[in-house]
């Protein structure tokens, strides 16, 4: 079956061990207000228009066959003299995509594939089929785990590693900032813990949203003593988060801030005190 992919990135250096190819699924059920991959949100192809370097020649508008609503037909891209327009979102057969990834992957070299998004579980059947096709590569996913428990469990059987986001422990605040409840997420975390699949928890840390000691300790309580947990990565809010919104002609008006470095330190220490390996990444 076909799935919608918005990017294939070879040599993704932040997404797992060794050489990694990251495949980004398009479409996400969450609406995290700090999302820095807005082109991954909608489950349909979209036009991406880079305004930097635009010479306002108007040829794209002249070439457009649908005068009002953009259907992402991509007709305009050919007419941009500066090459600033492209379509994000391409439909791939699972077998073709797996072949594309595997063929470029050098034999005998440490590494594998990491499926990311968007949200991979927005396309569950495609995900399962793709994972099957990707054997014998080392397979990882990066997920919010906001999905049905049985699908999550089925996917775990086909995975060698999981990166799971846990954003906010308090359900009300989770709803407020991401648009969805964290009940399913936390339930799936339990499934993950008992699955035997090694995993890393990623926490985007946003000042005043989820950088309290209480939030991190609640997370720690759930993770304490879990042998398959490799580490908790604290990722400070990306101040470049708004960079890609203009490409979609969207506005980004949030004014989030990353936490102070000392706060990140405190959070990492709090986890360490619970015997949970933690690290934090500075902004690139």
């Amino acid at each position: 079956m076909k799935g919608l992919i918005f990017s294939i990135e070879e040599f993704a250096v932040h997404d797992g061990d060794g050489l990694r190819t990251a495949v980004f699924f398009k479409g996400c059920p969450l609406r995290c207000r700090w999302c820095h991959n807005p082109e991954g949100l909608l489950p349909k192809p979209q036009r991406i228009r880079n305004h930097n370097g635009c010479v306002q020649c108007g040829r794209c508008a002249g070439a457009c066959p649908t005068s009002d609503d953009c259907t992402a037909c991509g007709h305009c891209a050919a007419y941009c003299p500066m090459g600033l327009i492209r379509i994000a979102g391409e439909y791939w057969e699972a077998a073709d995509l797996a072949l594309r990834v595997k063929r470029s992957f050098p034999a005998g070299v440490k590494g594998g594939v990491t499926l990311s998004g968007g949200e991979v579980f927005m396309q569950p059947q495609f995900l399962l089929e793709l994972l099957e096709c990707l054997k014998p590569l080392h397979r990882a996913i990066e997920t919010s785990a906001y999905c049905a428990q049985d699908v999550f469990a089925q996917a775990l059987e086909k995975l060698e590693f999981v990166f799971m986001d846990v954003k906010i422990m308090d359900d009300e605040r989770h709803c407020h900032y991401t648009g969805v409840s964290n009940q399913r997420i936390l339930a799936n975390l339990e499934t993950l813990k008992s699955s035997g699949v090694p995993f890393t928890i990623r926490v985007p840390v946003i000042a005043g949203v989820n950088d309290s000691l209480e939030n991190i300790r609640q997370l720690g309580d759930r993770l304490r003593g879990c042998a398959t947990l490799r580490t908790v990565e604290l990722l400070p809010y990306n101040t470049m988060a708004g960079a890609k919104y203009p490409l979609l002609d969207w506005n980004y008006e949030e004014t989030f801030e990353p936490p102070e470095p000392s706060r990140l330190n405190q959070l990492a220490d709090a986890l360490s005190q619970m015997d949970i390996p933690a690290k934090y990444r500075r902004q690139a």
Partner: protein
Amino acid sequence: MNDQIRKHLQWIEERQHRKLRRNLMPDEWQRICDEIRDPSKPMAERVTRRLELFLEMEQPVWMEHTHIQGLRTIIEFPDIYAPGEMDEIKTRHFVHEKGKVTNIACDYGTVLTEGLEGRRARLHAGLEQEDEAAKAFAAYTDRTLDAVEQFADRYAQLYEAHGDMARAQALSRAIRYGAQTMEEAMQCFRMIHFSFWAADNYHNTVGRFDQYMYPFYQKDIASGLLDEESALSLIEDFFLSFNVDSDLYYSLQWGDNGQSLMLGGCKRDGSSAVNELTTLAMKASLAIRQIDPKLNLRVDKNTPLALYELGTQLTRMGMGFPQYANDDVVIPGLLRWGYDIEDARDYTVAACWEYIVPNVSMDIVNIDAMPMAEVAHGVISECLPYASTFEDLLQEISCRLHNRALKMVQKHACLYMEPSPMASILMRGFLEAKRDISEGGKYNNYGVHGTGFSCAVDQLAAVRRFVFEEGSVSREELLEALGANFEGHEQLRHRLRTEAPKIGRDEEARMLGNRLLKMFAEALDGLHNERGGCYRAGTGSAMYYLWHSRELPATADGRDAGQPLPANFSPALFITRTGPLSVLRGFALSALPLAVNGGPMTLELHDTVFKAEDSVEKVARLVQSFMLQGGHQLQLNAVNREKMKKAQEHPEEYGDLIVRVWGWSGHFVELDKAYQDQIIARTEFGI
């Protein structure tokens, strides 16, 4: 880095050494010209006299913080040709570049061990029985040896004047009778390399440093004279010596001075040649962060990841080196061209990336270029209307490559090369034979670049897919679009650029690339030059990629008329939806052993890649993967496009931005704008 080296580095970075230079006075210039530009005298006489004068007029100057003295003070020195004389020579001869002995790798091991008197003894052995030509050669060579020895003596006097009697005596002795220690060997190297440049030879490579210097290192370690730390300092000091004059040594662009150095690989017997100096040299370069000498690293399937990681540390610094060479591809390739196995295993790199054999070879590795993109364009525009199958087009390509190769060989007849007693001293066997190296060496092969390779492949791949397989584009429409430079055919151009198969992304283009590379190599196979040498196909482009692109009309890969071609062995500039793994796989072709004249796969990595904690390991694995898949040569850049754009606007603020252009690293702001734009446009991969 110790305090002394740090001070010396600072002194160089402040450009203090440039203040010690001078221009010749007009009357001095005239006097020299009168002597060396006299057409009635033999060339060898004029070359010899020129070097004598140059070295005599060079005023030794003292650099406070180094043990490797030697600084060129005369900015420009006249060459031996009277006005119009070279043009006249060109009417009778083929002259490659400036007609000089260049791009050779000298026998520094022997020269440093036996000293110049050792060289002289070889010259004089059996000289009595030789003919007049041999005796004349010996006379010029004797004078050259004298000039270099006397030049070194004057530096010895400078040591003496600064109270360093030990080094003064050591230098005068070592230059004549051979170095005893690594420091002496380096000081002698400096005097000799300086003289080699002064002799007007250029692209004077440094060769297999970790091999010829190793016996001196071992001896010093055994005697306790050096430990690893002091050896590292000494190498740092030695490497800095390559940076004091380097801006005076150029051919076409600043930085293109050919001071390339090879590390690692195997010995002449095939065993691993990696030793302590291999890693110390990389560490020294990492510490001083200067663009000279330019490091190359030989690897093979057994090279441990740790060595790649050390190399990656240098890449991360943004040095544009090391450039990697794969023994598993290069050595079989050299054997195919008839190099003896010991010589093939001993290979090193010329100024940029062409593979040469040290000591004995007088190959001309960059004598010409095959314009692959132009050949493909010619065949498509002329033969597409009546070709019945795609195979017909490929056969026509093959014919045209053969025809062009034959014409090339005719063009190279009657070669003129200026004599070089200096180079003859530094190479092996010429003193014994009493013969100048300019007359030819053990190997006299000519290398031919293949420019616009990926453009050629992509043109053909697009035609095969769209015209012959899908029929989605008619022959008439394609040819009309090419003729109109895509005016009114924007949709087709877009399809050609984005949907057509591209080498570095699509498997079918890769297979086609393999065939095309094989055709190019086969077009040269069996051809011989007048010196009995063969022709070597390569994957480099040098400056040809800019020259060849300017005249080239719109091409079937979607490239506009005049738009640049990618440099060397790299994917199309406008390729999208690919990544480093696909690019490396696309260019690790099984036909590469047929075409190892040299020319690197060039991969740009955005410098943010290196901010990940295990980035060094990951990049090292990436390099290793290319080699394990059969890649021949790889050069990685850590670049930041935004920074380069800013540097174009404010060159004054980016004086230290170093980039790699074709085979060498240079300061970005000092490059011509066309080159700057090219670098900015190159495919770059971020995170």
